[in-house]
């Protein structure tokens, strides 16, 4: 049994909040540059140039890439041979978010209550997901999630008879409805299967996977490639000003599901798709 003090988790999360918000992951940078080389939209090329210039400024000056520094989505994979000591884990996570958002000059974008509103002032609470896995390590993934794109996400409970075509049509429908709103080029996270809640979580997890990676199952890897091509044939383009680059990637994650159902969630992210992982 390995002991890990939760203070260490606080420290790592504070650092990840700042790093994730100021330095775009290399996979996203690479795909944006690749898309710029293939773009043929009139305004689109200039927009992609500015998007590249923007993340380079953020890198050089250590400033947030985007002013929506998001809700802090925190995924903890906790080894079952780890004993967490030194305090309450959820409080330690929130403390990391609090410190990171304050010392990193990040925007505090969280309200206390969904209807009565009121900013919490420190960007807490984090959206925390914990999973118990084999081993004696703690893997921390932080994904600040902006809401311009989050608001364009959707979930649908399909009948199994809708089949693959139903899923394909739904993904395209969500992207079409999102249009210029989620700051395209977007990244499309898709969760298929599980239950209502698990499908949504899968879609969010799909966004934490590098955008240049493919599902390990060739069936779904092919579906990812096919959907990316179909989305990029819609012509929405960067910022909605017409062009090839509507999406940078489509990541699909799946789970077994019930005989009666086929849940599908589509979580939209913007070109500032942030994720950063560290293992303790």
């Amino acid at each position: 049994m390995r002991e890990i003090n939760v203070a260490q988790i606080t420290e790592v999360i504070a650092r990840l909040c700042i790093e994730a918000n100021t330095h775009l992951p290399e996979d996203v940078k690479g795909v944006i540059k690749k898309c710029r080389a293939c773009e043929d939209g009139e305004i689109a090329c200039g927009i992609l140039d500015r998007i590249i210039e923007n993340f380079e400024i953020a890198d050089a000056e250590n400033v947030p890439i985007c002013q929506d520094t998001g809700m802090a989505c925190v995924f903890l994979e906790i080894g079952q041979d780890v004993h967490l000591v030194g305090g309450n884990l959820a409080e330690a996570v929130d403390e990391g978010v609090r410190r990171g958002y304050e010392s990193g000059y990040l925007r505090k974008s969280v309200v206390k209550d969904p209807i009565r509103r009121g900013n919490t002032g420190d960007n807490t609470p984090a959206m925390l997901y914990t999973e118990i896995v084999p081993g004696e390590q703690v893997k921390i993934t932080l994904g600040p999630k902006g809401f311009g794109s989050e608001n364009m996400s959707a979930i649908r409970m399909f009948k199994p008879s809708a089949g693959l075509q139903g899923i394909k049509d739904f993904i395209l429908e969500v992207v079409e409805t999102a249009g210029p709103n989620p700051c395209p080029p977007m990244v499309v996270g898709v969760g298929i299967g599980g239950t209502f809640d698990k499908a949504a979580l899968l879609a969010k997890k799909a966004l934490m996977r590098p955008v240049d990676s493919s599902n390990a199952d060739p069936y779904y890897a092919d579906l990812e490639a096919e959907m990316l091509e179909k989305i990029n044939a819609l012509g929405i383009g960067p910022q909605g000003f017409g062009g090839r680059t509507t999406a940078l990637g489509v990541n699909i994650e799946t789970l077994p599901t019930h005989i009666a159902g086929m849940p599908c969630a589509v979580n939209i992210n913007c070109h500032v798709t942030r994720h950063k992982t560290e293992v303790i």
Partner: protein
Amino acid sequence: MERHITLPLTEELAKTLHAGDTVYVTGTIYTSRDAGHKRMCEALAAGEKLPFDPTDATIYYVGPTPAKPGQVIGSAGPTTSGRMDAYAPTMLSVGARGMIGKGARLPEVVEAMKKHSGVYFGAIGGAGALIAKCIKSAELIAYEDLGAEALRKLYVEEMPLVVIIDCEGRNLYEERRAAYLEQRK
């Protein structure tokens, strides 16, 4: 067409701007987003004055990150304009003419723009670090308790924008996308 304009956005000036124009804007603009708009519209409904003179004003839909020491403002890209659709016709009716944001607008906003000669400009969503470079001063003027959503008065120089919807109701999103799909045929 490429234009360099100086605010305020008078009716005469607004009428010379067309969907698709690249416009470099210099002058004073005001920041407001969801909570600020709600409060301003409540103030108007109660017969109160707004924290700034809306006549020919341009409102930037933004909630910036806090300024680091030595910075005028933090990252400051546009937020999704559609969330302000519930308030935009009211703001246009009291004289505010320019709106800066990103994303689609409802038909009722476009109708109000046609009626009051409003212009909807787009800034590049997600390019907050870059856009901050053209903001030369920032002053908090009201609703400090709203944090990032407080009202700020900004002075911008050569802020690069695109006219998305002009005061005749022409829409760049629709036109450019159709033109691109035609080009690819």
